[in-house]
């Protein structure tokens, strides 16, 4: 049963398995374990980013393609739902239309970019996607009539998913059974399903071929695999997954704007999460996203305390300021590319 669920790709390390179970349980019971708005929001973000980062890992870790347009697909998914909800009004049919439309647009765009630029070389693809993604971000902020411009879109979601909706009158473990809880579990189970689907993809014959293409494209081509086809399919799949993650985000935060979905900062966050968690291991996405978002939410307070404590030392105090946390993550990122390219997960697996 468990073997089928995880597609035969077990964590292969006791510590890793323990951590994953801990994260899984914490996310599954987050509303009951950590009451309050902020912890619930953090948990939902972790779920969404696990999907987003795993879909990026499909591209970077399994296919060896660097794309800087991943936030573009994330944004298209989010805007699909956002625009559908603002035009058609709150309703599940609007969400359905938005999800389908966003995913299709992402897939077609990914196909176009892939066919257009994957033939040449990895670096080329990275540069083209960087250019296209920033042009897209500018375009979205310019087309204010359609996308709300820089301000983004605020919209209403179906009543069943808002705090105003009561599921039952009693409280379960002192938690109100309202629409917000329902929305969280929608996000959680969708994320879980998408993650398991991706785990299935990378452990299928298709996924194995992707790894072959990554390790030696020339040889894979010589054996008879159409490398370009595999690369393009991986790009399209990962784009579709990213836009589904975007749709989840749009439903959860009830707001979609360039800063929350399309910005280069988020792209860099995704890169950091994949590399620190471990490239080419789906579980790396879970570890990376959880660590990063917890750090983003809570580490800054810690650094603030450290800044206060070192106030006497001028330079150290500046370097420890909460706003400088990206500096340390950047250093960690470089070090992890050099010294443990398979990230936390690879590290734990090697220890057995």
């Amino acid at each position: 049963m468990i073997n089928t669920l995880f597609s035969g790709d077990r964590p292969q390390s006791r510590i890793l398995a323990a951590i994953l179970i801990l994260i899984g349980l914490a996310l599954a019971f987050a509303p009951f374990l950590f009451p309050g708005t902020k912890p619930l929001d953090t948990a939902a973000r972790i779920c969404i980013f696990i999907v987003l980062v795993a879909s990026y890992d499909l591209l970077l870790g399994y296919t060896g393609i660097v794309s800087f347009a991943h936030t573009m697909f994330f944004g298209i998914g989010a805007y699909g739902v956002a625009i559908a909800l603002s035009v058609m009004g709150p309703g599940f049919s609007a969400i359905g239309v938005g999800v389908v439309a966003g995913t299709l647009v992402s897939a077609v765009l990914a196909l176009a970019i892939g066919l257009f630029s994957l033939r040449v070389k990895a670096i080329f693809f990275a540069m083209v996607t960087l250019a296209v993604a920033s042009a897209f971000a500018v375009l979205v902020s310019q087309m204010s009539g359609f996308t709300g411009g820089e301000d983004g879109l605020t919209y209403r979601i179906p009543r069943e998913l808002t705090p105003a909706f009561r599921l039952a009158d009693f409280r379960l473990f002192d938690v109100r059974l309202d629409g917000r809880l329902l929305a969280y579990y929608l996000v959680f189970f969708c994320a879980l399903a998408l993650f398991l689907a991706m785990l299935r993809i990378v452990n299928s014959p298709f996924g194995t071929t992707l790894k072959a293409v990554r390790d030696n494209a020339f040889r894979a081509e010589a054996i008879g695999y159409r490398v370009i086809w595999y690369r393009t399919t991986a790009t399209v799949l990962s784009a579709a997954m990213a836009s589904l993650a975007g749709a989840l985000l749009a439903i959860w935060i009830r707001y979609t704007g360039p800063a929350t979905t399309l910005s280069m900062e988020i792209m860099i966050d995704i890169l950091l999460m994949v590399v620190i968690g471990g490239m080419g291991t789906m579980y790396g996405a879970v570890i990376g996203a959880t660590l990063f978002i917890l750090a983003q939410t809570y580490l800054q307070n810690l650094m603030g305390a450290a800044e206060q404590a070192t106030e006497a030392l001028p330079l150290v105090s500046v370097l420890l300021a909460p706003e400088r946390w990206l500096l340390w993550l950047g250093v960690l990122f470089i070090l992890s590319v050099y010294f443990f390219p398979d990230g936390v997960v690879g590290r734990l697996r090697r220890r057995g």
Partner: protein
Amino acid sequence: MSETAIRPKLVGPTPLERVRRAAPLLLAPVMALAGLAAIGDPSVWLTLTVAGLAMGLMIFIMASGLTVVFGLMDVINFGHGAFVSVGAFVGFTVLAWLAGWTQSPAVILNLAAVFLAILASMAITGALGLAFERVIVKPVYGHHLKQILVTMGGLIVAQQLIHVVWGPDAIHVARPQSLQGSFIFGEAAIEKYRVFAVGIGLVLFLAMRHVLRATRLGLLVRAGVENGEMVEALGYRIRRLFLLVFMAGSALAGLGGVMWGLYQETITAHMGSEIMVLVFVVVIIGGLGSIEGCFIGALLVGLLANYMAFLAPKIALVSTIALMVGVLMWRPQGLYPVVKAK
């Protein structure tokens, strides 16, 4: 039998091939004429064309280092934008120190201040390039994926360090007295600074061309682009050559940063990574590794961006992407592809 011996025959390019090879050279004038046709008003067109040339040449300054480094060593530096930002901030600091010079009406003092700022930022970004190559790029030669990731990490760290040194806010940079205002030609107003930028850009392009075509160093660089292993086999230390080119490219990015900062009159730590989008487009259009292609690509992008900003401001950046797509449809490797085998 000897009568029928096969004689090697040297075939020169046919006239058609020559036209094809020279075709990209015509693109920039064609673009300018198309702009004139679309805009209609000659004085507006003149203003926009000078602005486009200035922008194009500044982008060329930043892109040239990147493309030569790639051609020579197959390394693409996604952190190149960091040098642009650092250059701009160092230039700003020097100009602030020399406030007495920049605010005096004497042209000589103004220009001296700008040149000192440029020199200082080139020195610092060149040194930074040395450190960047040694610490960040060197361990990951020949591994594209890691190169992209690591140089991206370098960019993050460099941007954060700029925040540490100069603070997180955008800074206003005042142009020196004699570079403010415009020349008036009939109805066309042309900003003085743009003329200055065009001048510096052209001088640099000619100098670079001279170094690459007429000096021993340039010969080695071109030979290294063509076939690095052979240059090494002939006894030259290509690593040292590469380090030199990397530093020069970084210093040029710093120079571009000062120029761009004075052009925009506002500098932020992110300005480098923002301009890198255009730099990448230019490098791709020109063909990875080609200086001439990079020059033409930069002019095209600069002109198009300025014309479109006037004609349809909302799609200005998208139009440069469309230009890139168009060029790649025509020539999938860029205008002048250099790196074939690697």
